[in-house]
């Protein structure tokens, strides 16, 4: 593993995020119920923890305020519902994120994630009847880079899970999830300086040295 910026740049919080830059993070929040229809009566709430990994797929796209980069990755979602009963849920969700890079240090993002989600809340509430579900997440947030590699994040997510019609009733559960956390960016397998334009030696190898010197 190599560090994104050399130690001399450690005080510069401007991140150099390029294609292949990876990011690990930990986000925590508190789940709040969103009862959108008359069928939704459960006031589920409790803490959530989401460790994540992402990789940057693109160079910055576009110009102006919407200039940004696409990342994909995955996260593990753990949700403990303390109301109406103590239950646990865990899921694995691939995610895609668009980070706005117009500002170097403060970078808003939008994210979408979805995947399988198991929770024993499923058979304890009137909206859901099965423990195996699928969770979908849409969120927005802001990353504040405190160093060139580390950032603090705050955001809001809207979450929905249901069992995709594998069992009834299946009204789904909607939740709001304000959250905060931190991320750390790094490169894997980086053999040295990342700032040079090319990898060619100063003296190209296709030119032979003088024979008679």
């Amino acid at each position: 593993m190599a560090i994104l910026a050399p130690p001399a740049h450690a005080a510069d919080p401007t991140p150099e995020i390029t294609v292949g830059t990876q990011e690990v993070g930990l986000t925590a929040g508190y789940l709040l119920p969103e009862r959108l229809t008359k069928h939704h009566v459960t006031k589920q709430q409790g803490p959530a923890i989401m460790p994540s990994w992402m990789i940057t797929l693109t160079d910055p796209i576009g110009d102006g305020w919407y200039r940004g980069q696409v990342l994909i990755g995955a996260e593990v979602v753990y949700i403990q519902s303390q109301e109406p009963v103590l239950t646990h849920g865990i899921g694995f969700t691939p995610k895609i994120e668009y980070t706005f890079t117009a500002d170097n240090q403060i970078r808003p993002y939008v994210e979408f994630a979805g995947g399988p989600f198991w929770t024993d809340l499923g058979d304890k509430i009137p909206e859901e009847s099965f423990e195996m579900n699928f969770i979908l997440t849409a969120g927005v947030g802001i990353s504040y880079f405190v160093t060139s590699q580390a950032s603090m994040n705050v955001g809001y997510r809207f979450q929905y899970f249901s069992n995709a019609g594998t069992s009834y009733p299946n009204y789904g559960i909607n939740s709001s999830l304000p959250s905060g956390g931190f991320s750390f960016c790094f490169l894997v397998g980086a053999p040295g300086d990342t700032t040079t334009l090319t990898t060619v030696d100063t003296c190209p190898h296709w030119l032979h040295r003088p024979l008679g010197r």
Partner: protein
Amino acid sequence: MTRALTGFIALLAGDCSHWIELTDQPTPLLPSQTTVASDLRVPLLLETVPITQNGAPLGVSPTLERQVLGAFEATQLFSQYFQSGHAQPAPSQAYVTLRLSMNNRVGPHSGETACRGFVIGASMFLLAPVISLDYDYGAEMALEVERWDGQVKQYTASSSGSAHYSLFGASPHVIKELTGQVTDACLASLLEQFVRDHTFYLADGSSQSEPTIHTVSVGVRRPTADAHPVSTNAPVSSQ
């Protein structure tokens, strides 16, 4: 084409994280032997190399300037090598001035890459080994060489290539390797043209005079393959 197919199959098999395909390669020529009398050689001055990317100014790259100067130095066709902004030849001295400009053409396929990334994520990363991501890069160089008496010759060269990599092989070093190989090929093409005219840059326009003769072997790299499969586990390095 066969090598490209081999590279892709290797990618599918999972034993390659990326491979690079160069196009527009210079026509490979046989290495030539050039004999240059040392008293005919004059100093060379490389002026600052402006770089543009897709036509937009990108500034200068000291690394590229060192690379270019090193390439010309390796020909041993000149007596001294100067870089603009550093030591200069004496004003009364006859010398050759190089003015090189470079334009990069970058094709990151960002939209396509984002869509493929979405598909890879939706497949729970199961398709990561079989969906390759692409990055195109091209370089165009224009070289103007001015002799001490004001005579000017101009040369142009271009080269381009593509890097294909899997999601887990995505790395800035793949891009660096691509840009390095493309720049390498472009500079080789330019140098090949320049060396053909080397007598024009000698003090009396001849390369066969005595007394002190150094034999200089100048050759252009002969591309060995259209595609270069690269091992997954080893750190990426240029060839």
